[in-house]
């Protein structure tokens, strides 16, 4: 094949190859140098942080919007549409409570009157970590709905508290501190009103306890919440 090539072209190919080899040999000595290694490590760190910064800037807005959409979707599941005509995400009152701490309460209004509230709370005592709930409570203190928004319970057992896996969580709707006395706010195994799952009692027990604490929280702040000014703090 090489004999068919014109002489000058062949010569150029060879000299290019030699130059390439030389560069590669230089690379070999370069890689041994301490300043090169330090520089490369610094450059890798710099490049990574730069890319992460750019990535963060590029995705931040979209992520915040998705999270707001998620929150709104959850709020709308626990606050029926016929109870409100306001913008839920921007009608918020922050309440400091002895039991739940600082809690952001989302107010549902119809014609300016507070008809129901929704708030997030963490139930403790689960199988693994906290179970984060969002619950909606009507002005008269009955539960409109409860949803689990984050948990780390055992998949296949404790995760039946998710609405996507089981409708167990709907069993709280319509309950209140008035129609269900304190000693009935337990799972059936402990002598209460709520089902446990086959093989998993700890998780439902924690959720029942959490909802009960949520209702107590609402009772403590009912008057304050019902008379909250429109708009509230954001």
């Amino acid at each position: 094949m090489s004999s068919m090539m014109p002489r000058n072209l062949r010569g150029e190919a060879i000299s290019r190859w030699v130059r390439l080899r030389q560069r590669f040999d230089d690379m070999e000595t370069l890689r041994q140098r301490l300043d090169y290694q330090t520089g490369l490590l610094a450059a890798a760190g710099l490049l990574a942080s730069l890319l992460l910064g750019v990535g963060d800037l590029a995705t931040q807005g979209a992520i915040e919007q998705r999270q707001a959409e998620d929150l709104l979707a959850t709020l709308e599941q626990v606050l029926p549409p016929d109870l409100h005509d306001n913008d839920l995400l921007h009608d918020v009152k922050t309440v400091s409570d002895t039991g739940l701490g600082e809690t952001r309460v989302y107010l549902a209004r119809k014609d300016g009157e507070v008809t129901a509230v929704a708030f997030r709370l963490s139930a403790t005592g689960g199988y693994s970590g906290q179970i984060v709930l969002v619950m909606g409570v009507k002005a008269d203190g009955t539960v409109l709905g409860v949803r689990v928004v984050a948990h780390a319970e055992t998949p296949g057992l404790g995760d039946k508290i998710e609405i996507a896996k089981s409708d167990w969580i709907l069993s709280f709707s319509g309950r209140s501190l008035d129609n269900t006395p304190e000693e009935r706010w337990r799972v059936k195994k402990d002598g209460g009103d709520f089902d446990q799952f086959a093989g998993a009692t700890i998780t439902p027990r924690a959720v029942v306890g959490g909802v009960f604490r949520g209702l107590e929280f609402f009772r403590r702040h009912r008057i304050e919440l019902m008379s909250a000014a429109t708009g509230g703090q954001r």
Partner: protein
Amino acid sequence: MNPDFRKITRDGLWDNNIVFSQSIGLCPLLAVTGTATNGLGMGLATLAVMVVCNVLVSWVRVLIPSEIRIPVFVVLIAMVVTLVDMVMNAWLHEMHKVLGLFIPLIVTNCAILGRVEAYASRHPVAHAAMDGLMMGLGFTLALVVLGAAREALGAGTLFASARLLMGDSFAWLETTLIHGYRGFLLMALPPGGFLMLGFLLAGKKLIDKRLAARQRRSIAVGETLVET
């Protein structure tokens, strides 16, 4: 197919499978294989990260001196995983809600560092990409098999809530094997993962032994044929 690629495929899926042969990456493996669906999700997320990391490292491999390769690789992998997490959260939000839990776990998967270090840093980009793909597929396979075995014994179902991972068109994957099954808690918990992994490893060794025996026999037969 290129013979190199055929060997890479064989290594990734069976001969040198990350889980069944190398026995690495067991932390995320045991953490998520409670169900086949979770195994599949983690497997696919790992596969994506593995391909990207392998290509990236193979691409810049000439620049990286061996003395500092490990910290450079770790920085690169952590960066890729974080970027994947952010991008999925922003634009594949529904999928992120399901897989989001697993993505930070990928950083703890030493199999990625292992492939980058043992393969990608010594081979051209195309080979490294293929290796990432096949090793990732092999890992996915192991996760799905282990998840399916644990789920079948633990809850009597297969691919429960696959819908949440892949959309309603995959609802047909969800099967209940045993109706009214009471569940076997041990299998759903991490110790069950170890037990099942042990059985699967033993099973693989058994199959390999059979294959080797058959190969020996056929070689012996071939030799007698040559002699006659």
